[in-house]
């Protein structure tokens, strides 16, 4: 199968189940909403070392946010509810509450919820104020600047982590440009984030290592510098590989983001689109590239 002359390899992306949450951050203007969102999704690229994965889902116009101010939606993913509580407490408490003018609302209706505002409220040292309207409880926590408004509970749901595809290009520049186009296109898909820097990973990993103390190591089969030195999956003419990792609130969203991203990435200078596939050792979900692309 080829798209715009780019080969779509007959392989699949191997994804796994995670838990997801959506937070709506609002602030006095776009700048501060985005600042809080960037802080709250910082150092959240891989669950392996960060405890969670997170990214910005998109901007929300003021007339669509709960308090009528400019907003940004972020998604956070962890391996389980316990880890999610830990991550949300840290990220809301340290990155959003500390940021001037912000408020934080739950953006995911779900039967399963975690008390986040309900736990952070104690920062108010007894002067916190509860507000309950139409079943939604908020906490007003007094801070030096005024008040931080945070919703008591945040919904979490089963989600999908580790969706991915690899862009195999002729040069580093062509590969990066293709990856950038892919990420730009994927940002229009609701319910997904690409948690790595700018949505792109250059240091993809495999799930084994020669060192006993390491759970993951560089993906040698896709490192151009190791071509001929170790078992390689790279065809001739490939000099750079970038990966785009996708976390989504459901399988459909990850599938759609994969489709949109691959379509955008298939440009001159790209040789092949492949996917991270660990022979079924990593996770139960498989996104077959050709099937996703309608082939």
């Amino acid at each position, binding site marked *: 199968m080829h798209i715009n002359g780019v080969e779509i390899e007959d392989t699949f992306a191997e994804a796994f189940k995670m838990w997801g949450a959506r937070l709506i951050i*609002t602030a006095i203007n776009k700048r501060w909403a985005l600042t809080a969102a960037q802080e709250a999704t910082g150092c959240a690229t891989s669950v392996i070392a960060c405890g969670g994965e997170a990214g910005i889902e998109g901007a929300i116009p003021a007339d669509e946010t*709960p*308090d*009528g*101010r400019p907003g940004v939606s972020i998604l956070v993913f962890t391996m389980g509810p316990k880890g999610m509580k830990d991550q949300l407490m840290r990220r809301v408490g340290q990155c959003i509450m500390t940021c001037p003018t912000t*408020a934080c609302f739950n953006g995911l209706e779900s039967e399963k919820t975690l008390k986040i505002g309900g736990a952070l409220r104690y920062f108010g040292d007894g*002067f916190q*104020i*509860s*507000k*309950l*309207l*139409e*079943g939604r409880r*908020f906490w*007003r926590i007094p801070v030096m600047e*005024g*008040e*931080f*408004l945070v919703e008591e509970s945040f919904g979490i749901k089963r989600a999908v982590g580790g969706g991915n595809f690899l862009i195999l290009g002729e040069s580093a520049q062509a590969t990066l440009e293709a990856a950038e186009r892919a990420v730009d296109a994927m940002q229009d898909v609701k319910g997904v984030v690409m948690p790595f820097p700018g949505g792109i990973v250059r240091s993809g990993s495999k799930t084994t290592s020669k060192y006993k103390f390491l759970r993951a190591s560089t993906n040698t089969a896709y490192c151009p510098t190791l071509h001929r030195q170790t078992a390689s999956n790279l065809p001739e003419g490939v000099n750079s590989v970038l990966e785009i990792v996708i976390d989504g609130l459901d399988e459909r969203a990850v599938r759609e983001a994969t489709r949109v991203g691959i379509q955008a990435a298939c440009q001159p200078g790209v040789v092949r689109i492949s996917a991270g596939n660990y022979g079924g050792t990593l996770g139960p979900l498989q996104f077959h590239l050709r099937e996703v692309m309608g082939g």
Partner: protein
Amino acid sequence: MGCVSCAGPLRGSAIEANEVILRLRETRSIPIEADSICPDRFVSRSQAEIEALPALFGRRKTTLGELFTVEGGNSEHIVVEGDLRHVKRIGQGMSQGRITIRGDVGMHVGTWMRSGEIIVDGNVDAWAGAHLSGGVVWVHGNAGAMLGAAYAGETRGMRGGIIIIDGDAGTRAGERMRRGLIAVQGNLGEFAGARMIAGSLFVFGKLGARAGAGMRRGTIVALGGTEDSLLPVFQYACSYRPTFMRYYLQRLREWGLPVTPKQIEGVFRRYIGDITTLGKGEILVYEP
């Protein structure tokens, strides 16, 4: 809990096919106690069974059928019509459905109500929504004293739900209120939010004198200024833009209340009190 955004379109709603319609047979000055006019009691009763439900005419025991004409049965939607100024306790304790009252109505409408909706196309007398714990009471006229308040001897008044008054409300609205929202589009009488424990009380007109006397927690929002200076047991804290206010005012505007963009963006003066009690209550006065 009922949803006000759903109740909004019900304002002045047309008669539906499956409603039970009660019309007062005769205007009288003797009080009628009609707590049996309640969707919980109508929903599984035929017209004849509804007519046989008990009521008090003065101190005389009687039936609804003697006092009202009844059309329909087996419905949780009730319409009550006539000069109802001496009819009390309509919707008392209701937990479902809707009551539409066409005209002025007597005391104790929707007391102890747990869920559902009461829409009044007229004025309500005292104690409307007293001890409300859920649902929506929307009055398209004025309300008497003790709106959403606590009966004598009770430690807590309104515990949830929403009361919206299009006109004015009398004295002691929200007294001992524990939770929920009262929004009065006109003026509020004296002692609004007295001994309030929590909850939110919004007034778009003037906030009456002695508001918040004895309040422990809770929020009184004066969007139209105050009738008199606040009690000295309230102390000025600061002027600021509370984020929660934006959320509340946005919701109120979505329900059709006359909230202006300036009010949503506005600055409020925060007074804390009553300092002779716990002192964690607040009166937020809008600065136009």
